[in-house]
């Protein structure tokens, strides 16, 4: 199963890179969103893959049952999801404003001497 997830992460990351390097405002946003998904999954699988064993402590017990999922990557990913969303929302608004100002989708027209 980890191989499938690895393939999914790799594919998502690669496509995110493609979008980021496309040189258009719209594709930059898509790339950013996909990059977030790939990164979150990557951190998540870092904790190992435990099925049906959430990191909860049962009533009366002092520690979770053996084999429970690692709580730390989950906490990190939870934080990351929220931050990624905040950044993405800001980037969306920024893109709208930038598009208003420059009236083009072509990122290379936003300054710089390159083509």
């Amino acid at each position: 199963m980890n191989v499938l997830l690895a393939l999914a992460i790799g594919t998502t990351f690669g496509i995110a890179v493609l979008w980021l390097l496309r040189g258009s405002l719209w594709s930059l946003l898509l790339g950013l969103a996909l990059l977030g998904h790939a990164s979150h999954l990557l951190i998540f699988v870092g904790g190992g893959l435990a099925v049906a064993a959430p990191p909860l402590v049962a009533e009366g017990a002092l520690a979770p049952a053996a084999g429970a999922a690692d709580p730390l990557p989950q906490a990190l990913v939870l934080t990351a999801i929220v931050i990624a969303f905040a950044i993405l929302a800001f980037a969306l608004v920024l893109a709208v404003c930038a598009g208003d100002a420059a009236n083009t989708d072509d990122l290379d027209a936003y300054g710089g001497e390159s083509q």
Partner: protein
Amino acid sequence: MHWVIPCLVAAGCLIPALGRWWNGRVPLIASAVPAAIAAVSIWQQSLLAAGEVVQFHAPWVPSAGIAWAFRLDPLGNLFVGLIAGIGTAVVAYSAAAYSGDARLPRLHGALFVFMAAMLGIATADDLVVLFLCWELTTVSSFLLVGFDHQTEAARVAARRALLVTATGGLALLTGFVAISVVAGTTSISTIVASGDLLRAHAAYPWILGCILAGAFAKSAQFPLHFWLPGAMKAPTPISAYLHSATMVKAGVFLLARFSPVLGGTDAWFAIFVGIGATTMVLGATAAVAQDDLKRLLAYSTLSVLGLLTLLLGLGTPIAARAFVVTWMAHALYKATLFLIAGNIDHATGTRSLTALRGLRGALPATAAAGIIAAVSMGGAPPLFGFLAKETAYEAVFEAPRWAGLLGSLTVASAVCLVFAALRSGVQPFWDSGRGATPVLRALPIPMQAAPVALGTLGLVAGMLVGPAERFWIAPAALAINQSAAPTGLSLWHGFTPILAASAATLALGALVFTNRARVVPWVGRFAPWVATGPSAIWDAGWRVLLQGARWQTSQLQNGSPRRYVATTLAAALAVIAVGLPWGTIVGAVHEIAPFEIVALAAGLLVMGGSLITLRAPTPLAAVAALGAVGVGVSLVFLVYSAPDLALTQLVVEVLTVVLFALVVRLLPRAKTQTMGSHRPSAIVLATIGGVLMAGLSLLASQPGLLEPTSAYFELNSVALAHGRNIVNVILVDFRSLDTLGEIVVLTVAALGAVSLLARRRATSTGGIAP
């Protein structure tokens, strides 16, 4: 000393502010501060010579063993006396010379900071404190050399002096770190007492090289000598202080300080004697050809600095003694001569030696000081300079190796210095055949008194050789070389070969002086190389560096956002590619976590969704595919025991899709539908990135690869935080600061978005942006 230094630094920082308040006047009384320090230093010297040790030690960074430590020993205290004594004259002199100038408080501010740093170098007993003071002198001397910052030449000179000495400072830092690692301490007195520890260590050549580079850059040794003549763009009292008496001596002082533990090896001897002799000869010959009074003094200073290095390299007790005597004598007579150059410049408006003559009538006090200093520099009795030359000759003639060669080079340089002394200290005042140079401005009293006082000190020191030797010279030499030189220095010690050499030097120097019309142009043909040769190489090096930086910037930061992203990604991927253990990853391919039908669906959803974005017919279709990816991610979280994440991800994904759908409408549409195929470079980077990330995730999901850090949270979640959902406990309790940061990011992003939208609404309705 431990409180004097911070106080002086504070005073230096306050003076510019106070000076503005006092209407640009810094009273002459400011020179009472260094005068008091000098008095304390003289009083302390008698105690130190009797074997007493004065030290101060306060912990600074105890965990690293770094202390705010100072220690007065005879060598350091001698330096303190010179710094404070000459500092007194320089502060008084510059207060008079720049009286009424609005820039005087700035000058004095930097001067006080510099003085504090120099006192720190002389007394520090901790490598870190020493290095701090060392760099402080570099910075404050940059401010002082570039004092006249409105002229291009002063800025160039200041920058070059800064670059040379600061580069040397980096080398010195490396050397200090190496020393502290080898010796296991940063305490200088412990290191100096460590015997053969450093010399026997395998890193000795590196330590020696680093320390030498730093000290030689500071003390302007060949081939790093060129910044010193350039630094003559500084105000003359500053040149007197920094570039003859104190800062350039810091390098040789440091070497003298460490010579008990670094010196005595063949490498030490060869490098010191080689570089010292080269600097000595080049400086002396170049001095002969100079027409500018200050540049002549600068080159003769180079020559003496070379001699000091040479003497340190010899490593004999009499060489250590000659080092101390030359060091003291040079500080006194050269500071005097610089102040005289300042007086002449102030009074006549020129420093050109061909234009200056017959000033003894108009500037009698200056002339008297000039002659005293010139006699000392030339090395004639009864001045201290005579003793310096006698002891130096004695040490060089009895050098362990190459005595004949070194002896003749030293005598030849001394002949040039006699010439330079006559030319700088006597000729401007005599030679009135064609009428005296007109005097345009009168000299204030302190400007006349300062060189006279310093010159007289040289005379007094020469007359009172006995006490000077007992209290200053012998104890300081003992700090450099543990075996004592025979005592009994005196101006007269019978007819010896040394006396003959001394007399011959004076006679030859006078002979050259009388034939200067022929000698100066002849030497002048070689002198420019000394001035410009290495400095041209240095400048070319900097040009190449700057051009390289410009090229690199134009390549990496050409203003195209796409290029920025590509560069950043490529650099990050390169780091990952190098760091990944591929063998482990290949092994992990065979390992399959428990098969789950939902997980299979989720993985395919993620993969398929991202692939579909590439081929989506409309932007809205791409948004839908993006939503599918998000739902897939949420499912992965759900299957693999992260219900909180699954919920959050689902909520966020819904919001994201809604936002995207709203934004699609508002973005400019020009290219969204007409995009060409992807660039080959982007495809290559994407493929490499995808493979690397897949490999990284295979590696990361390996069980038992690294010890998880979660055990603490698992064990303490209930016990300490009374929570049963460990993820929640981590977020709101164990790592609540992270969560606070997350909330801050969210708030800032929301505020930014809202204000951008408000601005947009205002402009689109024709209103004015808030």
